[in-house]
């Protein structure tokens, strides 16, 4: 047995024994009663925010200001990540091989399904578990699927480039900020929900600003992650050359 194997076994035994010891010593149990704060949310979310989904209500209404700053932090992280990898590469490749037609047809169906589910997650965020962030992450996956199957160049030919996606992301984030600031015009606090935004539109429950926040967060997260995915993906020609060089 090599030292590496022995080290791994020791690590495994150590982690498992620590986990078991903590379990026995601290004896963690699920609380038998709901805390006062939890009781408040359960009782009043529908009245305060007119949304049946308490998690979304807490994230975008009760502590909405916090979430908006979090979104800004994420945006800065993406901008920072793109700024570090500042290779302004102009890709203009002739070959567009990609994968076989079986893979292409399957990917078409799957991409359509993923996009539908992503929209459903985001736009039903005030009714069911989900919201802008998970929906946007799901939509960004379509880009990661299309790049290996249809090649990066085919996406660029369609006009989907990371610069444009970053622009979409900036617009969506501006709209999100506007949704938060608009109540100030009427003399209300920033991030006010039901006093300013209607809870129903055309007979459908949108829970005031929750739906708008989810929509713009969805667009911002989807375009931001897709931009990063596009930026990090390698053009097919370069990849093939790398493989040839390795042989």
């Amino acid at each position, binding site marked *: 047995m090599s030292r590496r194997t022995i080290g791994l076994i020791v690590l495994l035994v150590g982690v498992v024994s620590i986990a078991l010891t903590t379990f026995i010593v601290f004896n963690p149990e699920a609380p038998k009663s709901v805390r006062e704060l939890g009781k408040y949310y359960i009782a009043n979310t529908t009245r305060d925010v007119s949304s049946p989904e308490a998690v979304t209500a807490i994230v975008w209404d009760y502590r909405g200001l916090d979430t908006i700053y979090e979104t800004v932090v994420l945006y800065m992280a993406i901008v920072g990540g793109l700024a570090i990898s500042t290779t302004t590469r102009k890709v203009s490749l002739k070959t567009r091989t990609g994968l076989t037609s079986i*893979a292409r047809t399957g*990917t078409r169906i799957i991409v359509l399904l993923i996009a539908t589910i992503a929209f459903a997650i985001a736009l039903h965020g005030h009714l069911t578990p989900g919201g802008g962030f998970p929906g946007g992450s799901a939509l960004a996956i379509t880009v990661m699927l299309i790049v290996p199957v249809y090649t990066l160049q085919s996406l660029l030919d369609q006009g989907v480039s990371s610069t444009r996606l970053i622009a979409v992301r900036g617009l969506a984030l501006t709209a999100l900020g506007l949704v938060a600031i608009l109540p100030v015009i009427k003399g209300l606090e920033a991030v006010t929900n039901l006093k300013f935004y209607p809870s129903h539109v055309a007979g459908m429950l949108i829970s005031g600003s929750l739906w708008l926040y989810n929509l713009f967060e969805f667009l911002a997260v989807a375009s931001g992650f897709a931009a990063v995915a596009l930026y990090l993906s390698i053009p097919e020609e370069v990849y093939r050359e790398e493989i040839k060089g390795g042989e």
Partner: protein
Amino acid sequence: MIEQVLFWTGSALFIIGGVFDLLGSIGLLRFPSFYVRLHAATIGAIYGAVLPLIGISLIALGSPGIPGNYTIAGASFVTALILLVVAPMGSHVLAHAAHKSKSVSWKPFVDMLEEDEEK
């Protein structure tokens, strides 16, 4: 009556799926080369997952006593459809990549792909 039929059809699909899962895992262990093993693995994915999922949706359709049974039925049917599209695609892409990169041994008795590519 119809509920009984749905229940027993669903259960039969379950058992068939289990048998195919067993056959697929035996094949995965015993088959000689990468490509045939891939075939066995896909049998596990298609017959061993799609059929039981359709079985679940039939059983859920036939039991109105379970809360949200139509949700369960619809969700498992859609999952079965997605798997039906994705699983063959995945093994096709794996086989394609393995063949193109020449990373597994390839000793065919008849190589029709090569004959096609020469044309």
